[in-house]
Every structure is written in C-alpha cells, then in structure tokens.
C-alpha cells in the first residue's frame, strides 16, 4: 500500500512541479481575494451623502446640524432651501439621506420635537446602518438639550474580543476559511475529472491499485496545499491587517486539518459525479456558493429560516468559522471548541468514506 501511495504522491508532485503556473494560480488569487475582502467586506459606513433642509433656523437646529458635520459618518452635500430640492437630491442619488428640520423645532424641543428623515432605501443595508448612526447622534443631542434634569438611559456598551468593533476582525478569519474551501474543493474536484478526461484514469483503473490508495494519493497533496493556504492567508491577515491571534496554534492546526479533510471529501465526492470538467465546474458552482452563504460568514445563521439552518449543520465551513473566530479573537482552546472539532471530524469521515465507496474502478 505504501509503495503505491509513494508513487502516486511522487507523480502528483512532479506534475505540480512541471506546471509552471501552478504556484501562481494557487497563491495570487488567494492574496488578491484576501485584499479585496479585507478592504471591501465591511459593514462600517462612512461619508453618507446627506442633504439638510433647515426650516427652523434656530440656535437648536444649527446645533443639531453641527453634530452631523462633526462626524465623518455623514457628509452634508446640500443645504437645501425648500422641500422640492430635498426630493430632487434623493431622486437623483445626490444624497442617500435627507434631514428636514421643520419650523418650530426648537419651540417643541422640551415637549418632544419631531425630526423628519428621508432615506434612500434602495440599498437597505446602508440605509439601516446610516439610520443607526443617525439615531445615535440625535439621542446624544437630545440628552445634551435636556441637560442633567432630563431622564435618560445612556448605554455603556463594551464589546469584548474586538474592542474597536472592527469589522475586519470579524471578516478576516472568515475569509481564511472561505478562500481555503473554495480552492481545495475545486482543485480536488477538477484533478480527478481531468485524469478521467485525458484518459490516464482508465489506465490506472485497469491496474490492481485499490480505490483508497488512489484517493489518498490524490488527497494528500491537496491537503498540504490547503494547509499552506491557511498558513499564508492567516499570516497575511495578522501581518497586513493586524488581526490579533489570541489562541493556540495547535487548536488552529487541528481545526484546519479536520476542515481540510472534509473539504477534500466534498471535492472528491463532486468528482465522482462528474464525467467532464464542464460538469465538475457546474457542480462546484452549485455546491460551493451555498456552502459559503450558509456558513455564517456574512449572513447570521440565527436569522435564517429553520429549514436552512438545518443545512448549516452539515456545512464544515460553519464549524471552521466558529473555530477560526474563536481561536483568533477569543483565544479559547479545545475545552470550548470540542463540539465544533468533533462535528468537523464526523463530516470529514462521512465525506471521505462516501467518496471512496463511490469511486468505482469502472467506466460505467
């Protein structure tokens, strides 16, 4: 068995070595995507184009406006003179949000004044986030106006593990898992299908090699490549984006290994269902996107409908993201993460066993 495995591995690494673009293809997309995700994937919104119509023209209204000017969240792009200008700003997209201070605002302040806000809801995400900032600013302002006499609860939020509530800290560990999954699943799925298409698989199937010897020979190189991916992307996140790494590298390695085995199993399984690279491509597309969406990478699992939540339980990325975030940001170890690690081990075992069972040494 070792002999066959050894020649399989030798062959795989020779092919990889001869493939001049392999290193480029393996590394560059990872780094580029890491950069894109690192910079673009954020929920923080700055410089929301804002249009203001002050019909009150009082001390209080000017003071409220100055609160908006003072923050980088909002950029006042237009001081409008009448309602129609506001409508125009929103319609043309010049402003995302418009604030209208009606006449009598300052008089009504102690009885409860109303502030009209119009927001361009086409991007509901930005709108919601901007409204959140806006209400913070407004409640700060009203607390100020009511002075010490006013009754008010001020919230003292203190986020743990990510004190600055930096989105990047949330995203980067997720990016590591997601990019590795994409790369490992597609590499594995394509590798076997390519041998099938070229015809070398037929020559191998007619030999007495055992399915698991072949599968193992195909998986080990991709396992090592996957580990390299994780190492590279993690180092990049830590050194370039300054994400803290609080945890134990061994916990990370254990999680990464189990996750990679599960990802390899999925790739192998996909390859047993494809005859051509074209089919492998479609299958890959069909399966990998849901894995990504149903992982909790960007969309909270808690917000998903019940039946979709069930799918997340068979998604290795779900567990690996928990492990990654916990290891990076919380620094917790095996005692806390054992359920996730066990789930990954189980998924890896099932996916790999299924692929060995499904890999028939037959052309039909």
């Amino acid at each position, binding site marked *: 068995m070792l002999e*066959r495995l050894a020649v399989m591995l030798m062959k795989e690494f020779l092919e990889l070595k001869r493939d001049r673009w392999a290193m480029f293809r393996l590394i560059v997309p990872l780094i580029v995507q890491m950069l894109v995700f690192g910079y673009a994937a954020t929920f923080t919104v700055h410089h929301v184009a804002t249009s203001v119509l002050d019909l009150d023209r009082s001390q209080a209204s000017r003071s409220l406006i100055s609160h908006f000017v003072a923050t980088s969240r909002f950029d006042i792009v237009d001081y409008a003179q009448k309602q129609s200008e506001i409508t125009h700003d929103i319609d043309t997209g010049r402003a995302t949000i418009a604030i209208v201070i009606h006449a009598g605002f300052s008089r009504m302040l102690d009885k409860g004044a109303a502030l009209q806000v119009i927001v361009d809801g086409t991007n509901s995400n930005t709108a919601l986030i901007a409204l959140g900032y806006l209400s913070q600013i407004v409640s700060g302002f009203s607390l100020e106006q009511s002075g010490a006499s006013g009754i008010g609860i001020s919230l003292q939020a203190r986020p743990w593990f990510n004190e600055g509530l930096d989105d990047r800290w949330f995203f980067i560990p997720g990016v590591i898992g997601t990019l590795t999954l994409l790369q490992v699943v597609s590499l594995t799925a394509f590798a076997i299908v390519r041998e099938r298409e070229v015809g070398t698989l037929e020559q191998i199937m007619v*030999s*007495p090699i055992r399915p698991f010897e072949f599968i193992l020979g195909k998986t080990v190189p991709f396992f090592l490549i996957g580990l390299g991916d994780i190492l590279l992307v993690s180092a990049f996140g830590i050194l370039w984006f300054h994400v803290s790494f609080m945890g134990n590298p061994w916990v990370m390695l254990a999680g990464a290994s189990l996750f990679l085995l599960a990802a390899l199993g999925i790739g192998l399984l996909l390859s047993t269902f494809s005859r051509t690279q074209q089919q492998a491509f479609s299958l890959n597309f069909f399966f990998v996107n849901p894995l990504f969406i149903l992982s909790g990478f960007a969309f909270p699992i808690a917000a998903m409908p019940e039946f979709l939540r069930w799918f997340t339980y068979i998604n290795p990325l779900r567990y690996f993201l928990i492990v990654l975030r916990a290891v990076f940001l919380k620094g917790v170890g095996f005692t806390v993460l054992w359920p996730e690690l066990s789930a990954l081990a189980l998924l890896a075992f099932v996916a790999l066993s299924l692929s060995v069972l499904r890999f028939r040494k037959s052309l039909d």
Partner: protein
Amino acid sequence: MSGESKAIVAQGLSKRFQSFLAVDNLDLEIAKGEVVGFIGPNGAGKSTTLRMLCGLLRPSSGKAHVAGYDVEKDPEAVREHIGYMSQKFSLYNDLTVRENLRFFGGIYRVPKKEFAGRMNFAVSMAGLEGREDMLVHTLAGGWKQRLALGCAILHRPPILFLDEPTSGVEPEARRRFWDLIHDLASDGVTILVSTHYMDEAEYCNRIALINRGRLVAMGSPGELRLRDLGGKLVEIACSPLGAAVNALAGSVIEAAIFGDRLHAVLDPNGPDGEEIRKLLEEKGMNVGAIRMVSPSLEDVFVRLVSGGKEERVLS
C-alpha cells in the same frame, strides 16, 4: 468452464448503452500464446469488448473469463494478469519516460530488485535509449505507442489487450510495433489487439472480424481467405467507379470499390466477365482489363458484412 488452456473465453457477451446494443452476443475463445486481431470498422464495438474483458465495463449480459477469472465477479484478479493499452494515449504527458515507467512499475508493485532490469528492457524495446529523461509529450507518435506498450508489460502480464495501438502511427513504426508484438508472443504472451487496418490482419495467428457489435467471422487469415464468396472474384478497371457499382447491382453477388478498381463476385448463374464488360459499356462506361483475382481478407470482410448472413465462428 474457464478452460485451463484458454486465456480468454467469452460467451454471449453483450453490452447495451441505453437502447443501443454496442456488443451483441459475442463468443470468443483464445488459447494461450495466440495473437488475435480484432478487426472491424470504427464503431464496430472493439473498444467496448476489450473494456469488458479488462473489467472496465460491466457486461450487460453474457460471461467472460480472462486468465481463468470471471471479469465480473473477480475483476481485481483479472487486473493482476493483464496489461492494457487504451485506444487513447494515456500516459502522463508532463512526466518523463523514466517517471512514467517508474509510476506504472510502482502501481503494479514490480519488485524493487527486478525493476531496473525491466525498465531497461522496456526502454530498449521501445527504442527509447537516451530519451529516458525526455518529457513524454515531446515524443513522436510511434515512440509514445511503444512506451505505452512498455508500461503495459512492466509487470509481465501473461495476457495483453491492445486497443488500436497502431492507429495514427506511420507505416514504418507500425511494422516495428508488430515485431514487438510477435516478440512478446514468442515468450508465450497472449495478445488480443484491435485494429481497423485490414492489412495488419496478416500479422495475426487468427482474426476476429466484428461489425456492428457482432462477430462476423473468426479464423486464421488463410482460412478466411479460402472462404467461399459464392462465386469467382474479378477485378475490373473501369470508370466512373461509383456508377459502375450501381450498374452492376443485381447482376453480380457483390460489387465494391477497391482503391482505383472494382471488385465483383460473379454469380455462377449470372453474367460472366465478358458479359459484364458489355453491360458496363452499354451504360457508357470505360472498361479496361477484367481479370480473376484471389480474394483478399478485405474482400472476405466486405462479403461477410454486406451479405448480412449470420456467419458464425469458423473452425
């Protein structure tokens, strides 16, 4: 039933792809040490049959034993005893000659002690001395085919299946390849080799003619050539050939174009050579020499295929 002296036995072997019957009720018996040519046009079912015998495809019905093992029940035992060269070249193009040999040697677990010797044998057999470190994709067709044969025999299989090993290879390299096949056969290896080159039939101990999935005839080239075509065979120099074939339909048993001539099997109760000439000239064709020829295998094959009769195994 597997028969101790028989290397390959197939009984009623069939393969159905969806509704299409690619191999139809094929019977085959090949003795140890025989070189058997599997001859038929493209799509006849040669590759499908070879793949079933190698355990790569499951027969839809029928049975086959190779080296005494049932291909369906015990494909792994079959695999230990066979070498196979698929129709499509299937070595690793981005590995060198030596790396390919080492790979297949390892997959077949050639003992370490013997490996160097067998590799040298394969290299010299393929005429690849001095090219051991060349990448396979840089080799010309003939060398590739011989290397593929070398990889297929590294583990010294007693039975070899070669699927159109000489297609697309220049004539000189084809001849060389057949020399190799005969060298192996003289060492006692049983070889079933498919081809669509009729002239290669002469190199085989026996040939199996296959058409549309059916075995049309089987026997030695000599035996097959002696087969009764139903009448005398004449070669007619005339033009245009296509019109002449149509003109003769109904007057002769069989008419077919052979290169720049026409071959016709005369009906003993129909027109003879001179009457044929008149018949063609009346239709405005130029007719040159008409002479009796002895049938080639191709004549026999054309006759068997178009005759549509259910010819069964000869001998």
